[in-house]
C-alpha cells in the first residue's frame, strides 16, 4: 500500500510518501509490517487494541495512536483524520495516488474561506452583512451553546460574500455560516 500523506501541525503542512507492506498472512488486527517513509525504512509491530486505537512498537518504543475523523460529520470522500500520539494531535490527510486529483495543492490555496460552526448551537447574533469589508479579528457572529455565548472572529481581512444563517436558527457542528472572500 502506497500513500501520500499531508500532515498539518499548526499552520505548517508537510507532505510524506509512505509505503506499508505487511507480510503474507498478516491479520486485520495486528502483526508486523515493513514501511518506507520518504527515504527511511523500518519495521513496526502493530495491533488495533480498540476501534481506531493502534498500539505501535517501532524500534523498541511503545506508542499508542488514536485515529478519528477530523470532523464529527465527515463529508463523503473526506480522508482527513486527527491522529493523537501520546498527548500530541496531528491532522493527517490521505491522498490515495490512484484517486489523486491535485489534492495536496488544495491545502495551500488562499481562496474564499468558509467560516463553519465549531460546535452545534444557536445563532444569537449575526454581526456582519453581505458585501461588508471586515478586518482580521472582527467579530462575525455570536453562537450560543452550553449556556455560553461565543463570538466568532475573522482570522484574516476579507469581504463577506455570503451569510448562510439567520439569527435564532440552530446549526450543527461544521455547518457553513459565512463565506469570506
Amino acid at each position, binding site marked *: *500500500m502506497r500513500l501520500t500523506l499531508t500532515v498539518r501541525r499548526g499552520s505548517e503542512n508537510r507532505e510524506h510518501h*509512505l509505503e506499508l507492506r*505487511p507480510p503474507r498472512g498478516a491479520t486485520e488486527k495486528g502483526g508486523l509490517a515493513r514501511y518506507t*517513509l520518504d527515504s527511511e525504512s523500518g519495521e513496526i509491530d502493530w495491533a488495533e487494541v480498540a*476501534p481506531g486505537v493502534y498500539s505501535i512498537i517501532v524500534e523498541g518504543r511503545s*506508542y499508542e495512536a488514536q*485515529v478519528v475523523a477530523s470532523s464529527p460529520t465527515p463529508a463523503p470522500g473526506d480522508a482527513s483524520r486527527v491522529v493523537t500520539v501520546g498527548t500530541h494531535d496531528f491532522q493527517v490527510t*490521505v491522498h490515495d495516488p490512484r484517486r489523486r486529483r491535485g489534492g495536496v495543492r488544495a491545502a495551500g490555496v488562499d481562496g474564499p474561506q468558509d467560516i463553519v460552526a*465549531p460546535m452545534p448551537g444557536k445563532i444569537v447574533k449575526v454581526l456582519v452583512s453581505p458585501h461588508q469589508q471586515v478586518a482580521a479579528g472582527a467579530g462575525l457572529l455570536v453562537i450560543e451553546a452550553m449556556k455560553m455565548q461565543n463570538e466568532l472572529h475573522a482570522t484574516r481581512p476579507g469581504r463577506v460574500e455570503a451569510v448562510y444563517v439567520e439569527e435564532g436558527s440552530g446549526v450543527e457542528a461544521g455547518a457553513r455560516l459565512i463565506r469570506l472572500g
Partner: protein
Amino acid sequence: MFRKVLVANRGEIAVRVMRACRELGIATVAVYSDVDRTSLHVRYADEACPIGPAPSIESYLNIDRLLGAAKRSGAEAIHPGYGFLAENPAFARACRETGIVFIGPPVEAMELMGSKTASRQAVTAAGLPVVPGTDRNLEAFEEVARVAKEIGYPVMLKASAGGGGKGLRLVQAPEGLESAYRTARAEAQNAFGDPSVYIEKYLERPRHVEIQILGDHQGNLIYLGERECSLQRRHQKVMEESPSPLVDDALRRRMGETAVRIGKLAGYANAGTVEFLIDRKRDFYFLEMNTRLQVEHPVTELVVGIDLVKEQLRIAAGEPLRWRQEDVEMRGAAIECRIYAEDPANDFFPCPGLIRRLQAPRGPGIRSDSGVYEGWTVPLEYDPLLAKLVVWGSDRTEAIARLRRALAEYEVFGIQTTIPFFRRVVEHPEFLAGEIDTSFIDRALAEGILCGDKASPEEERVALLATALDAARDRPAGSFPVPRESMWKAAGRDALLNRWPRRT
C-alpha cells in the same frame, strides 16, 4: 436517616450525590429533562422522573415540577447539588412548606448570605475584614463614581445577584467607569433579571482562598481547611487545590475561625463555603459565601478524609456533627481539574457531541467523579462540565506528579475537552512553585505560553503509520468498526509486485 432522596440536578454532581446516598442505604430519585433520558444520573438512580423539556427553566429550574416529582416518588428530602436551584431561597422555602427536607442551610441563612450586599453588611457589622467597597446596591452613576474615588482604582463592578463572571467589570481608571457601569448593569439585567451592581476594591493579583465549613442543627460549626481557587479563566475556577501553597497553620486557623464566626452570625447549618481574597501582604478579606456544596468539594474530602455529601445528608436528617474541630486533620495534598467540553485550541468554545472513546485514569491516588460515559452524546443545553479529575499525594509535589500522570492517561475522543490545557498548566513553572493568582491563567493564555510543546519526529512518524493502518480499512475514517473486507489482501498482492527493502 432518610429512606429516599430526590436529587434535583444532573451530570457529575447528581451522580456524586447518589453515590453518597447509596453508601448510606438511601434510595435515590433522578429527575431529567427530555434530552437527559440517557444521562448517567438517570441510569444510576433507583427511580427516575421526567420533569419537562430541555430548557432549564422548564425542567431543572421548575420548582413545581421538582416538588411534584418528589411527592409522587415519596422522597423525604431533596439534594439540590450546585447550580440550578441550589442557592434559591424560594425553592428551599417551597420544600419546607411542602414538608420536604431541603438538604442545605436554613432558608434565612441562605437569604442573608446569598445576597452579596447583605452578607457584606453582616460581616462588616461583626467587625470582620471585607474586601473594601460598598455593602449595598448602587443605583445612580454619581454614587458609583464617588465610591470608586473613595476606595481608589482599580475597582470591580459586580452584579448583586451575580455569579459565574456575569455582570462583572474591572475598571482601571475613572475614564472607563461610566461605560463599564452601563454594560455591567445591562449584562446583570440580562443574566439575572436584576440590574443592581455594587463596587469593590480590585486587589492586585489576589489569591482566591476559601474555607469549607460544616454545621449541624444543634449549633456546632467547624471548618475543614481551605481550598486554593486562584486558577481561574475569566473569573471562573478551573483548578483547585487543598491545602493552599500560601496558607500556613496560623493563617489557616485565623481564616477558619473567621469563617466559623461568619457562619455563626448567619445561623448557618449544613455545608457552606466562605470565600476570601488574600492580598500581597497575606491579609485576607471576606468576599462572599456560597451556601451550598461546591464543585471543588472533593479536594477537601481527600485531605481531611470526610465525605462532605454524606455529612450533608446526616445533618439534614437532624444528626449532630460526628467531628469536633480538633478531630479534623489535613493529610497530604489534593488537586482537582474540571474537565469541560470546551476546545482549548479554539478559545475554549463549548464542544458538545458524541463521546466516542473515554478512558479515565486509574491507579493510586486518582479519584474520578464523572457524569458521562462512552457512547453518550453531550447535549448542548447545559453546563459543559463533564467530569472532575482529582488526585491526592502525600505532598504537593507528589500530587502534581500524579496529576501529570493522570492527565497523560486520560483519553476523551469525539469531542474536545480541557484536558490538553491542563497538561500545559501542570508544566508551568509558576504553577509548580505555587505562585498562582487569579490572573495567572488569563495572562499565560494571552502570552501564548500554554500553547503546548512540539511533538517529536518519532511521534509524527507514528501518526503517519497509524493513519496508513487506519486507511487500510474499508470503512469511513475514524469510524466505529463495521464489517470489513481486508485491505490487507490487496496490500499483500501489491507487496508481491513492489520491491521492498529486505529485512537483514
